């Protein structure tokens, strides 16, 4: 106790330690105030915490490395180690005193953060226990264990490196930079310059092992409420490792002979165990610039592979029933029993996302051979059996399933689907929404520590029913109203009223365009609000409508939902005419309602026609580019690109306003373009629109 008090006195009396410490405490108070202010303005609690508290954590950690080092090394600087060591467990007692002093010093800001999070929970006013638990865990992992690990690292460097400050400074700098996005561009070098994907993975492996606080300084990715701050079990393992491992290095210095050897062995075992556990971390949310990250993994994967187009592919069989036994731990472990309607075929093709490693395919007669090629599984005959059992495990960077959250929407091939279908659309930059034409019977059991929500009836993570897609969601997720599932901490939750409003708007729109057959009974379906992150790397699956449920990451308003649904219906295979299509949908859904467009003056139709014709004649700037361009050609190209951009926005807006709002034939125009957008036509919209405008205006 006395040694502890003396060590603490040393810290508090040394101005080089205590003054910066008080400054850090003041900074924490200031950051908390800014965090609160940010939340009050935006209403987004996760964003506020991330920007003001989580991102600067590495600086706090580095400060505690400094504290740990300076407090411990003064025994070496003042030549005390020799005579301290001469006493029974002298060095151990001295280091223990320093250790407890450091833990006390760390505990103060950690407690401040803890208290702040409790206050923030109360301020947010959402009575949702998992959110409170999340905040508590956050304060322990990000703001408790991480600074403690910093202090331990500093202490270990002092014990081992002693007064070799060059090494200490270098290691500290390296550690700090590895915990920021400073490394983003240099880590791209192996892949982009040397085409070495393996080296990039190795670099990120090392970085991840050193990363105690994801969403680092410099990260601009948002935190999504269903997942919250990444706190998967592996992050706790890493944090505890970085507290214990430096501690063992310090203890090694305190002992001699057998105990020293035993401690060295213990350090090595701890290192091996942690690296081992880290290596099987499975599904972890990676929101950064690496090739394997949430936003980039799939686009890069599919860009690197030969293009295959399976539109119109006929599977030749359908799946009547699924019996699924899913275990979600570090990643998804699945045993899926599939009953096909046509067991006499000579071969079967299935689609299963490439991230899932297929261990075996069995019938009741035993294992059958299979061929795995990317997202596809090819089998031979089933020898009369109509049931197959697929056993697999793995993960998807985007559609994660781990101990923290599950987002597995029914349109994604996380379980085997009949036939070959594309998972990614390179042209539209998004996931293909592939749903089977008929429903299957699902019997599902999910083993997970989380409460799982599913489109099928059931409870206690067991579900049974019919659908053309099985969607599973879990995490900070709840049934917020009957049949409506959303993130309780999210500001824009859907309501029964907004769904009904969307249904009304869509019904009205479909009737106006002469397609009553397309009316959707939204209110009869379960509604799953998907995280906003779904739109991060995909333009195509913001809203997916399945036979019994809807998965949508759109805003909660009825208008927004209707817009999102109509966007998913209109021209699913088209990538051009984005602006024109957006305006079209706006006018289609708002009907006769005054829009902001109406407040502006009428369209000058003759100017519009001239601009449309000019644009028709303008060559595509992208197609004109080639490597050996002269300076004049480059200037001309830049001019053409600018003009193209000006015309694209202006013409799209004015053409849509004229055709769908001002024109006497606006209803006919709406019907015409609805048929165009929902067809498989590859014609460009501009000539069609130009022709209609010209026709209306006459000679």
């Amino acid at each position, binding site marked *: 106790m006395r040694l502890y008090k003396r060590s603490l006195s040393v810290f508090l009396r040394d101005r080089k330690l205590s003054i910066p410490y008080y400054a850090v405490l003041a900074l924490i108070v200031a950051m908390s105030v800014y965090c609160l202010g940010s939340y009050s303005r935006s209403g987004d609690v996760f964003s506020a915490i991330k920007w003001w508290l989580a991102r600067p954590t590495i600086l706090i950690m580095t400060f505690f490395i400094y504290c740990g080092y300076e407090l411990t090394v003064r025994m070496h600087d003042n030549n005390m180690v020799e005579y301290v060591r001469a006493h029974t467990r002298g060095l151990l007692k001295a280091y223990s005193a320093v250790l407890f002093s450091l833990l006390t010093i760390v505990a103060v800001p950690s407690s401040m953060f803890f208290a702040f999070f409790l206050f923030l929970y109360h301020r947010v006013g959402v009575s949702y226990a998992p959110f409170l638990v999340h905040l508590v865990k956050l304060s322990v992992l990000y703001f408790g264990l991480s600074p403690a690990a910093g202090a331990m690292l500093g202490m270990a460097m002092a014990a081992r490196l002693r007064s070799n400050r060059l090494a200490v400074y270098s290691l500290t700098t390296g550690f700090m930079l590895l915990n920021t996005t400073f490394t983003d561009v240099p880590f*791209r070098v192996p892949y982009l310059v040397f085409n070495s994907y393996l080296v990039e993975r190795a670099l990120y492996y090392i970085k991840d092992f050193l990363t105690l606080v994801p969403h680092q300084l410099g990260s601009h990715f948002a935190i999504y409420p269903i997942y919250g701050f990444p706190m998967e079990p592996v992050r706790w393992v890493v944090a505890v490792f970085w507290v214990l491992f430096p501690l063992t290095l310090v203890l090694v210095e305190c002992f001699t002979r057998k105990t020293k050897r035993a401690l060295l062995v213990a350090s090595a075992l701890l290192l091996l165990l942690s690296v081992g556990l880290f290596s099987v971390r499975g599904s972890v949310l990676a929101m950064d610039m690496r090739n394997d990250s949430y936003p980039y993994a799939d686009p890069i994967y599919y860009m690197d592979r030969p293009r295959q187009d399976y539109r119109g592919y006929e599977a030749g069989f359908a799946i009547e029933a699924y019996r699924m036994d899913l275990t979600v731990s570090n990643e998804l472990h699945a045993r899926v029993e599939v009953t096909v309607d046509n067991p006499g075929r000579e071969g079967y093709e299935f689609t299963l996302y490439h991230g899932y490693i297929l261990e075996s395919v069995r019938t009741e007669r035993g294992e059958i051979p299979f061929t795995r090629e990317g997202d596809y599984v090819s089998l031979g005959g089933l020898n009369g059996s109509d049931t197959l059992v697929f056993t697999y495990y793995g993960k998807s960077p985007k559609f994660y399933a781990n101990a923290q959250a599950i987002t597995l929407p029914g349109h994604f091939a996380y379980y085997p689907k009949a036939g070959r279908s594309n998972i990614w659309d390179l042209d539209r930059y998004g996931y293909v929404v592939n749903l089977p034409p008929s429903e299957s019977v699902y019997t599902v059991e999910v083993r997970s520590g989380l409460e799982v929500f599913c489109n099928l009836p059931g409870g206690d993570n067991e579900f049974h029913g019919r659908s053309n897609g099985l969607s599973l969601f879990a995490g900070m997720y709840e049934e917020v109203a009957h049949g409506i599932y959303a993130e309780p901490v999210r500001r824009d939750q859907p309501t029964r009223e907004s769904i009904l409003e969307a249904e009304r708007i869509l019904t009205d729109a479909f009737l106006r365009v002469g397609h009553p057959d397309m009316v959707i009974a939204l209110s009869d379906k379960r509604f799953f609000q998907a995280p906003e992150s779904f739109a991060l790397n995909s333009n195509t699956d913001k809203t997916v409508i399945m036979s019994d449920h809807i998965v949508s990451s759109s805003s909660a308003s009825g208008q927004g939902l209707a817009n999102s649904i109509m966007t998913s219906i209109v021209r699913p295979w088209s990538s051009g005419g984005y602006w024109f299509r957006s305006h079209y949908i706006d006018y289609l859904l708002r009907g006769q309602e005054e829009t902001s467009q109406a407040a502006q003056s009428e369209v000058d139709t003759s100017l519009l026609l001239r601009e449309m014709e000019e644009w028709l004649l303008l060559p595509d700037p992208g197609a004109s580019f080639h490597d050996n361009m002269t300076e004049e050609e480059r200037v001309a190209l830049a001019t053409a690109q600018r003009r193209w951009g000006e015309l694209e926005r202006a013409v799209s807006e004015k053409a849509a306003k004229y055709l769908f709002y001002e024109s006497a034939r606006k209803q006919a125009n709406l019907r015409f373009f609805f048929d165009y957008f929902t067809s498989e036509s590859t014609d460009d919209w501009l000539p069609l629109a130009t022709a209609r405008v010209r026709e209306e205006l006459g000679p």
Partner: protein
Amino acid sequence: MRRLYLELKNQRLYVFVPPFVLFALLPLSVLAGPQGTDPSFLLCGTLSQLFIPSFAAWWPLFILKEYHSSPARELLVVHRSSRAELFSRMMALWALYILLVAVVFVYFASLFGFVWYLFAAVAAQSMFMIALGYSLSLLLQNTFIPLIVNFAYSSIFMLAVLDSPLNIFTIGTFSDAGSLVKPATVAAVAIVLLLAGYQAERRLYRRSM
């Protein structure tokens, strides 16, 4: 110069960190653009401002460390050839560092054409970082905190808080002389910091012993 050489040699392998960053890490990172595209001058400007000023203070701080915490510090302080020796040392290190940066920029000029506005900007920023490290280390009698502040400053203002009046960096194309207004201000602030550090150095013996 002999003393400077020996002080750099005293850093052993750590002396090669800034050259590694300048001659390997930075050029390779500039080349690491999206596949099939030419290197981007905008990216070059961003990376140059991220890497170059951060590591400008590396040599100076490691040398200053000897004056604060090495066993020989008493001798170093007593046997200074002038009361402003450290100040001269900082300027010499800045000049040496900028010389290395100029070599890198000759390479960048071969890629992008005229790059010398950007060069002037990073030279001013490097001077600022050295001046900040110099004055802080003399004020605090410590080099660990200035080192942390140095990298924290670069990380915060290049990666997170881009628009702040305290930010010495600029995200832009450096395509005309107008882009030198901010670097000129940065250089002026650097000179003020150097003068403050110089005043602290003159009182070094009295304060440190």
